[in-house]
């Protein structure tokens, strides 16, 4: 009887919280959209490919070699995922540490984006590790304290945990766990400080990994300043990602929005920050170029590609952000943000894949299974974002919890 009673009680909860108030049949029917069909196709191909990779190993599924051990799972999923997730700590520190309260409405989606970005970056990393089941050994048993990789591993592990804790209040509001939420909200400032520390450490350390490969990385991209480049560009990437993500969310999740929020104003504010950061980043890159003294290489094909990245993806977006913010052209700002996100992806791929082994006889080109795996992981991340936003109070606050944060 008790089981029967709890089943009856549980049904409304599942219906309300998980099935968006629909019955199971209506819910499944509501999923039959063209967009979901595309997602379904990607997953139908991608998940078996990922299983294949774990069943038959890296050699069977990838074009990775001893010469080129890092492919797009590191260059794209890991490096880009982590860089684009920097909006989480940037926005959280702006609001909770610097007191820029007006940006509060974009903190929650930024933290969720960051959390999912890290989770799927780690999943990409697990695909890339030859024997992922051995991961606990370097993490917990045999410490390689002199290794940059050890620091990156621990930082990413800790920061993903911090992001989970930063995001948890939203999940607790959804579950109506008031005491747990209250406890975590009290920790917000502390978590934000830890988040800034960990992000500073590992965003730069991801760049420091490439200091180990001075002979493999093209001299125009190799610089002693790579850790600083990675950190600063991650801030620009994170802010741009927040602009893009908030614009897309406002289109896709109309019913979930807090309509009191003036998103245009927040967007231009973020654009100003991105403009300043990119401007400083451009001159730092220039300083690195002067420090390397490889001016002659600018006249080569690699030089043209380097200049394209420098001017097209750093200087021009910086100027466009400033102009867009000044004249309040929000559409221009949003397209510039999307272009900057692409620019950061290009930069990370340049450093880790494209300009890596530039002078080797054979150049790494990802296999189709690597590409499919990356697309699958990104798709899963986007789906997870959709799932959460449609259920939890991410884009707006629940009236019961509109207290001080």
């Amino acid at each position, binding site marked *: 009887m008790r089981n029967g009673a709890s089943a009856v009680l549980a049904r409304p909860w599942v219906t309300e919280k998980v099935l968006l108030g629909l019955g199971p049949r209506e819910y499944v029917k509501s999923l039959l959209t063209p967009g979901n069909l595309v997602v379904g196709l990607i997953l139908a191909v991608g998940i078996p490919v990922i299983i294949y990779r774990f069943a038959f190993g890296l050699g069977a599924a990838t074009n990775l070699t001893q010469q080129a051990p890092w492919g797009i799972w590191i260059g794209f999923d890991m490096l880009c995922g982590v860089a684009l997730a920097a909006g989480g700590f940037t926005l959280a520190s702006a609001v909770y540490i610097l007191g820029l309260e007006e940006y509060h409405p974009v903190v929650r989606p930024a933290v969720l984006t960051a959390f999912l970005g890290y989770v799927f970056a780690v999943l990409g990393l697990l695909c890339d590790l030859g024997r992922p089941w051995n991961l606990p050994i370097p993490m917990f048993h045999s410490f390689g304290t002199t290794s940059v990789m050890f620091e990156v591993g621990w930082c990413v592990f800790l920061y993903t945990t911090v992001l989970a804790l930063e995001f948890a209040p939203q999940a607790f509001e959804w579950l109506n766990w008031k005491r747990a939420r209250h406890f975590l909200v009290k920790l917000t400032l502390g978590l934000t400080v830890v988040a800034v520390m960990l992000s500073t450490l590992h965003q730069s350390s991801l760049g420091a990994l490439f200091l180990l490969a001075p002979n493999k990385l093209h001299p125009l991209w190799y610089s002693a300043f790579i850790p600083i480049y990675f950190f600063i560009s991650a801030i620009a990437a994170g802010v741009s990602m927040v602009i893009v993500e908030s614009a897309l969310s406002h289109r896709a999740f109309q019913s979930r929005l807090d309509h009191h929020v003036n998103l245009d104003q927040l967007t231009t504010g973020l654009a100003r920050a991105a403009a300043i950061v990119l401007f400083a980043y451009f001159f730092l890159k220039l300083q690195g170029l*002067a420090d390397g003294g490889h001016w002659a290489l600018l006249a080569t094909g690699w030089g043209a590609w380097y200049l394209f990245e420098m001017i097209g993806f750093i200087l021009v977006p910086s100027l466009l952000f400033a102009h867009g913010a000044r004249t309040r052209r929000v559409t221009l700002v949003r397209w510039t943000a999307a272009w900057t996100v692409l620019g950061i992806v290009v930069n990370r791929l340049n450093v880790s894949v494209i300009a890596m082994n530039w002078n080797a006889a054979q150049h790494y080109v990802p296999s189709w299974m690597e590409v499919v795996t990356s697309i699958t992981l990104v798709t899963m991340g986007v789906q997870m974002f959709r799932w959460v936003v449609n259920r939890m109070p991410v884009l707006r606050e629940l009236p019961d919890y509109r207290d001080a944060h």
Partner: protein
Amino acid sequence: MIFHDVVTLYTFKAIEYVIALSFLALFIPFWRYALSDRPATQPAMQAVARRAVDLVEWFNIARDVAFHPGHAWARVDRPGLVTVGMDDFAQKLVGPIARLDLPPVGAEVGQGEAAWAVQVDGKAVSMVSPVDGLVAAVNPRVVETPDLANRDPYGEGWLFKVHAPRFAANVKGLLSGRLATRWVEDATDQLRLRMAPQLGLVLQDGGMPVDGIAQAIDPERWDTIAREFFLS
């Protein structure tokens, strides 16, 4: 160290210093550019400051316009075409404008005759045209966002344009230069006489007037006060 090495080293360092100094020199103007708004979206005080304006008492008066005593202004765009707006005194007197009822294109307006109305707090107050003529265009932006007339009364907050064939005659009824200054001073004196002590800091002690001075003077009959100043 041979001469060649010294030159090479110094060249290297010189380039780095040039980049660092260029950054510092460019960063400040870039910072100012990125963090500022275009004049149109700035508060009225800063916006009009970019135009040639004088601050007379509490109010800005633009140098390139002629004022009608009913607190409307006229600016000659080209011979026969005049832009019309309300002055800084008028917008500060009525405060945040909720709606502007402007004449349609083609309507006839006459100097000193009621031509448009400002709506504030549910009350409409007419204002008079500074010139005779036919309305040639209406500012769509100010219709959509009437507070443009508050923020930038002599610029983006213009109201309409008039084909004014009789402008040469009309201009005799308008004030500019020192006359305009004296007129605003007189209008301010009249305003002071009406101010009640409860207005506090905005009084004659050097503070800036509040937005909606008329409402601050008399919340009930502010529209009557406004009409007196607007000669409507």
